[in-house]
């Protein structure tokens, strides 16, 4: 049984089909990439997975359980963690307090255990020495790390990462890649959205390509990058941009 099974998922915004008839499965332990041009519907898909958007149609199953109707908090409790594309730390809290929210209410444990786990996650993400810094005073790299740390603190079995590399310098991105690998090795299945192709090549076991809300290819990195439809989609947007 797949850890995550998405079946014929669609989302309409008014007349716009942001996601259309999307089906895919993610096996336990895998690192799964979703790529595609801007506006392809990647973030919309993650929003439906984490329970922030209700699909127009289709179903989502986690570990065989249909979670389509569950609230975001309930999905978190079933092991779904999420880092946002647009970082949004709780600005009035310190770094430690931000992570504590996930450790307390996502992982549902006592305050003392939550604090221990928070420190472990901060250590893992390289934020420990910043624990008492206000989340408002972080650099972009630190904010991205905090975004991941908060998601990790909820104890996910499946972690959704939305463009965590965007805006990072190559060296920083390399560090983030290492972090994601470590997290995956510790037993967390990962779905990530990414525009930086070398990162996708280095990380992904399986790649799903979306364009205009529909899946156009799925396979290994090499398979999908050879796919004429994929090349067309990417060249197409380049022409649009030019």
């Amino acid at each position, binding site marked *: 049984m797949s850890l995550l099974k998405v079946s014929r998922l669609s989302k309409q915004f008014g007349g716009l089909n942001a996601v259309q008839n999307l089906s895919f499965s993610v096996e336990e332990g895998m690192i799964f990439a979703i790529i595609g041009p801007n506006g392809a519907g990647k973030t919309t898909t993650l929003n439906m997975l984490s329970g922030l958007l209700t699909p127009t149609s289709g179903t989502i199953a986690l570990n065989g359980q249909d979670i389509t109707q569950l609230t975001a*908090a309930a999905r978190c409790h079933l092991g779904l963690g999420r880092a946002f594309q647009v970082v949004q730390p*709780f600005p009035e809290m310190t770094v430690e307090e931000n992570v504590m929210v*996930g450790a*307390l*209410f996502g992982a*549902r444990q006592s305050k003392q255990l*939550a604090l221990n786990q928070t420190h472990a996650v901060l250590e893992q993400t390289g934020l420990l020495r910043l624990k008492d810094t206000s989340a408002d005073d972080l650099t972009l790299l630190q904010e991205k790390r905090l975004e991941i740390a908060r998601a990790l603190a909820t104890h996910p079995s499946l972690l959704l990462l939305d463009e965590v590399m965007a805006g990072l310098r190559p060296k920083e991105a390399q560090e983030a890649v290492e972090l994601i690998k470590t997290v995956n090795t510790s037993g967390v299945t990962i779905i990530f959205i990414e525009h930086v192709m070398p990162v996708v090549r280095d990380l992904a076991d399986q790649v799903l390509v979306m364009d205009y809300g529909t899946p156009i290819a799925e396979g290994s990195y090499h398979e999908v990058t050879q796919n004429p439809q994929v090349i067309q989609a990417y060249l197409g947007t380049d022409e649009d941009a030019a």
Partner: protein
Amino acid sequence: MKLRMNLVLLALAAVLLFFLPDLLKLFFDKASVSYLSLLINATSLAILALSWDILARTGQLSLAHAAFFGAGAYSTAILVKQTDVSLWLGLPLAALSAVLLALLLGSVTLQLRGIYFAIATLSFAEVLKAVIQKLPSSLAGGAAGINVEPLFRPQFIAGEMERWEIAFLRNESYFLLYAGLLLATIVLSLLIESSSLSYAFSAIRTNEEVAAVMGVKAARFKLLAFVLSSMPVGILGAIQAHRIGSVSPDETFNVGTTVLALVTPIFGGLYTSLGPILGALGLASIEEFLRRTFSEGYLIGYGIVLVLSILFMPKGIMGLLRSLRKAQRESL
């Protein structure tokens, strides 16, 4: 650790408050009666403000606190009028009716944010007032309201006591009751601050969606905040009904109560235990000072002070203290 220290401080404050009326009498004689009235006003404002702040910590800026106050006042007034039970039973009943009302209002406004939430809560309070007015007058007294027996009847010993001494006794008893309720509200607020609730409240206030994705069941915590916030206000309404001696739709469901409930914590500093209390002490003293200085039209002066303070201290007294402390630390 910090909680324990605060509770010790609070116990000291309790002892001080207990002896305060006698100290005032010792030093100020007859004038102690009006000082006690001022203290009662400040204490009652502090209870209202701190309770309002507890709800605000979840991002819910309520305009319904007059409704919780009124529900407490009216349930007590009706109980006292219709039955012979002990007057004191009115207080838990007041808490209960405020809580029920809070659960009802809280559940219908769960999805509302910002101005929509504010309008919904304000309308709720107005509707409740209208309902009370329309209830059979044998039950709720209609537009004229109901008289409420006092909780305390000081014994008048003819020839041995002056008039003001009786007024003092009356004020003293009420002051101790208000002070007790305030201390209980502060303990409640401190417990929230030091528990994991504070993380949930603050996360929901700043970003409910992210909080939900991190496992915070926002609806549950928002309702809980409604319940905790409404309880002291309901009891306050009941005590006030006894002290004033009557309830009526216009006096008891006064928009002024709602306005004070939100202005005071803003003036003192939001989302803390100390801020609303400092705000209440500050506003009650300023109001009293202006009233004595300008008797006529002092409310205009009061309004100007409020506007200026919000302009120049956007984070309230607490914000001012924080920046002073920071400046001091940096100059060292």
